[in-house]
């Protein structure tokens, strides 16, 4: 796909000049922090003082730390629940809004609105929906479905579920746009031919549309898996600074911030958890890539 124009830059350094700002930023705020995180993770550095080399002590500590396992479990659970929802529901939504019917532009934009809203605003809106005196509990009590309010935000597991609902709700419109682009490339003539052969819409969806958007499904799966591992704000806004009762709903990014910053911040230990989060992310990106490569064969 490289468009080689055959044109040469006037001088050898022109492209570097054009790239310089980008390269400086990437080096300072991406490459170096990564290298530095690896280094820090092997030291006992704290926020106010540098540390000495301690080898893999921080990693050993993480594996023996119940907080680490709670956070890892929460992050992985988050991913396992949220990813299938975000692979299939936005596809259904895209199919729904794909056809040009009057007013469809309005619906597309409306479904995209939660994407525009910040995680904090979305958190505030859903906090009000899910609070013990919030909309859902009030309606449920008026209809006598429940006598005690459902502890959406005050029970660790429920808090995680609430955050997942928020993530899915906010992600629907985002991935819908991905699928709209993919659906635009699904050949109309194939559909027409299949329709002539008597295939119904459901049949055509599964035997024509799905195979053609499968690469996009894998991409959406990978992207949503990576973003599921990054969840922080939803938990923070819905559950507060401690991450639910006893920190029971903390995710890995949540733990990293708690451990690494503040007056007693243990940057070395936080760096080790950061690297473990990175490795977890890497596993899922490679998995996504492997799946899509296998698909091409």
């Amino acid at each position: 796909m490289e468009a080689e124009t055959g044109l040469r830059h006037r001088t050898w350094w022109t492209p570097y000049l054009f790239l310089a700002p980008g390269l400086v930023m990437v080096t300072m705020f991406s490459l170096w922090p990564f290298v530095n995180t690896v280094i820090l993770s092997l030291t006992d550095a704290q926020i106010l003082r540098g540390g000495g080399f301690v080898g893999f002590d921080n990693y050993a500590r993480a594996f023996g730390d119940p907080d680490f396992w709670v956070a890892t479990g929460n992050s992985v659970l988050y991913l396992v629940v949220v990813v299938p929802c975000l692979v299939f529901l936005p596809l259904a939504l895209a199919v729904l809004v794909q056809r040009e019917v009057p007013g469809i532009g309005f619906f597309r934009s409306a479904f995209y609105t939660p994407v525009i809203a910040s995680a904090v605003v979305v958190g505030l809106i859903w906090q009000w929906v899910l609070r013990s005196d919030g909309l859902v509990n009030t309606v449920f009590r008026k209809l006598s479905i429940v006598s005690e309010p459902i502890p959406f935000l005050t029970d660790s597991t429920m808090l995680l579920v609430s955050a997942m609902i928020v993530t899915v709700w906010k992600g629907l419109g985002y991935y819908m746009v991905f699928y709209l682009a993919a659906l635009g490339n699904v050949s109309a003539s194939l559909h027409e031919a299949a329709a002539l052969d008597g295939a119904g819409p459901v049949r055509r969806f599964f035997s024509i549309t799905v195979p053609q958007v499968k690469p996009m499904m894998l991409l959406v799966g990978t992207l949503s898996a990576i973003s599921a591992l990054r969840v922080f704000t939803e938990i923070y806004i819905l559950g507060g600074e401690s991450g639910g009762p006893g920190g029971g709903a903390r995710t890995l990014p949540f733990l990293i911030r708690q451990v690494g910053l503040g007056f007693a911040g243990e940057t070395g230990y936080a760096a080790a958890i950061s690297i473990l989060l990175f490795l977890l992310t890497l596993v899922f990106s490679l998995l996504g890539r492997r799946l899509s490569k296998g698909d091409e064969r």
Partner: protein
Amino acid sequence: MRAPSFRIGLAGRYATLLLMLVVMLGPIVWQFLTSIRGRTENVYDGVLPARPTLDNYVRVAESFPLLQYVGNTLTVALLAVTSNLLFAAMGGYALSRAAWKGRRAVFTVLVATLMFPFESVMISMFLTIREMGLVDTLIGVWLPGAVSVLNIMIMRSAFLAVPAELEEAAVLDGAGEWTRFTRVFLPAAKGALAVVCITSFMGAWDDFLWPLLVLTDSENHTLQLGLKTLAGATTVSDQRIIAAGAMAALIPMMLLFFALQRFFFKGVGDGAVKT
């Protein structure tokens, strides 16, 4: 060129669309309605407020320095838009056209950095910002996002789609590199530039975790950080005020988006897929 379609009946389609509209917009609309309810009115009394009022917006502005937070956020957002537009376009241009030594290597390194989740480098980024003496400054909030690799890639793929003939014609006319960049390539990639513009503005406006790490003094808080205090005070605070705060952060974004949405959906197509 009609897209393939599914005939589930127009009525059924609209019914499903309306149902989804309630799911997607319902919570936002209800929050908006709550934000204009009078102080004496029960929040759950009927769907529409009996006496709509803007009183809660005044009260939220009184309870914390809303305008100052908006100003701080705008500062960061406008810096981010300017730097991303300029630097991403420049970087994308260098990566898209004529081959040069090391292009492949630079490209690979840039793509590789996309694999580092921000959360796994944020502690170290914070230490860098602290060493630069930029903790608790808006510059410190802006700088790490001054140009994103993703935006460079968006610009690159938009420039790749510019026909070679257009560039060759410009060369024959004697246009230098910078002239070709500004006169030929930038105008041809308006859609992608719009996408970079909107996404970097929204990214800066909506960001929470990084400002939370960098900013301490509430003087310098961005809007999202300011809103956090509303979330923390749920048990005592008035839902109407929280709603007004949330709407004050959301409505400008929605206006911006609806004004530019045509550009946006078109630009997404420009950058993502070429047939």
